[in-house]
């Protein structure tokens, strides 16, 4: 065996941030497509339910206060989960692009962690875009309070991170040919039963539904958003929201990390 003359020590953090820089550069380049992909649906929802229908008198005017946090949660969750899952399905599945990063001198689970951090950032960017857009489309929102910034920031980061971790799980589990199926079987029910269009407390009238939807992580982000920006709308206790989201984040990370390592090393 030959002794290696120079042991080049590479700080793990340097490699981690190099990968993050890569993801940010790619995201910045694809920003218009990214926004179309993730913000189109929330924007259309706001135009129809938050602008047109109240104008037509079909919806109550105050409905926008319920809708805005829901739509914000939706865009945050969708963009986070897609930012992680979609590239992963392709890069693990057929292009194998991820291999260059898997061969970098850092533990492979940090490559997975970096994907979650990048997804969280992208989710937050989608939120930052949708919030003012919503205000523009729907006009003055009754009871909108953006003063509790730490609360808003906290739920945004936690929600985006949880859904990025879910993206990791899905990115590892889904085969390229199943992407369409993922949207119709997982994402769509999640959107419709995610308390995005209606507050969770209003489900009192349909008790079965009220407890069934609790398996949906989007419920907690939407309710957390209501607590943060429209506190007058009845909403779930922010502490419960935070605890559940932290729990889900840890669960998804644990499952996603294991699945990632199984894909990374055979």
């Amino acid at each position, binding site marked *: 065996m*030959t002794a290696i003359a120079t042991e080049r020590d590479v700080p793990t953090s*340097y*490699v981690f941030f190099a990968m993050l*820089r890569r993801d940010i550069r790619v995201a910045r380049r694809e920003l218009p497509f990214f926004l179309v992909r993730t913000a189109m649906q929330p924007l259309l929802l706001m135009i129809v339910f938050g602008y047109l229908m109240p104008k037509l008198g079909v919806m109550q005017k105050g409905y926008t206060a319920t809708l805005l946090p829901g739509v914000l949660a939706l865009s945050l969750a969708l963009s986070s989960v897609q930012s992680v899952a979609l590239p992963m399905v392709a890069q693990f599945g057929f292009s*194998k*692009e991820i291999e*260059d990063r898997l*061969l970098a001198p850092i*533990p492979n689970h940090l490559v997975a962690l970096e994907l979650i951090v990048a997804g969280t950032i992208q989710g937050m960017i989608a939120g930052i875009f949708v919030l003012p857009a919503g205000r523009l489309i729907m006009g003055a929102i009754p009871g909108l309070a953006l003063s509790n910034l730490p609360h808003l920031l906290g739920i945004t980061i936690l929600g985006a991170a949880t859904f990025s971790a879910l993206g990791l799980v899905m990115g590892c589990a889904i085969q390229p040919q199943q992407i369409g199926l993922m949207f119709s079987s997982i994402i769509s029910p999640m959107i419709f039963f995610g308390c995005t269009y209606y507050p969770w407390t209003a489900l009192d009238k349909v008790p079965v539904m009220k407890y069934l939807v609790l398996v949906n992580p989007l419920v907690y982000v939407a309710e957390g958003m209501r607590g943060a920006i429209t506190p007058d709308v009845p909403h779930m206790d922010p502490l419960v929201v935070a605890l559940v989201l932290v729990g889900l984040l840890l669960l998804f990370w644990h499952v996603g990390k294991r699945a990632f390592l199984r894909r990374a090393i055979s």
Partner: protein
Amino acid sequence: MIETRALTKVYAAPAPRKTPTGPTGPTGRAPTAPNGPAGRGARASASIVALDGLDLEVREGEMFGLLGPNGAGKTTTIGILTTRVRATSGEACVAGRNVSTHDTAVRRLIGVVPQRPNPDRSLNVIENLVFHGAYFGIGTAESARRAIALLEKFEIAEKATAKVDDLSGGQQQRLMIARALLHEPEVIFLDEPTVGLDPQARHALWDVLRALHREGRTIVMTTHYMQEADALCDRIAIVDRGKLLACDTPAALTARAPGATLVDLTVEGDLAAAAARCRLVDGISAVDVVGSDLRAQSLRGGEALPALIRAVEDAGSRVQNINLAKPSLETLFISLTGRKLD
């Protein structure tokens, strides 16, 4: 520099995932890797033995070839040495570091050229190299300097800002080599580097590999092309069914090849009777029945052919096809494994 001891890899997967392009990638679960010729069939259906106690030693500065048919275990061997596949048992070390316990240290020392180019398609050509450098702790300015030098060396400098999809297959393969070299690794692994390249691109790549070898780098490559292994490698390991069959210089291996030309006759009719007749032909040292073929070892090369055909016909059979193989790595391979390379 590289050492493996009793390396074994058993894939638990009952059936390898079918991809339209066939078994590729460093995890390449070659579905053709059977569990021995016969007898262990029951277990083979539940798992695939890709490596079956492989011992290898690669010296520093050596150009080392792993030669074998598809499913021989070549890609799995590379996968283990490059930390992407975990061995079921046995040990593998690169530059004195155990690949399973010191994987990140090993990754720092190796450059990997995959079987199929896998550039980062979201980045352009030079970004691929610069970010790769960053993953190995090299600053942007230094990475860019090295990247430009490598692109010039591999004659793709004019494509520096192009999308990787705009590169031809050969150019993408050269980009992969440039990427593998950017962090100046001690060992370079290439998995079937010339598969899918046209002859011109293949020879250009050979020149690149020879130049790297002259620089004193340790190079490990897999191939199932005899000629490629013969032309490039200092030493060749012939592997099949996860086992090492022979390991030596191309010259020494060729010298070990049976001295006779192998004549394969595909025969319709009574093989045993035809074989018996053929054994009487002048200049034929041995005749074996291999499947529906007769394999004759001819000391007179192709000159014995008319007599062989007559002998088969005298036995009441007919020759449908003829194949000749001169003494070479190929005949050695056939004599070792009983089958042809591809």
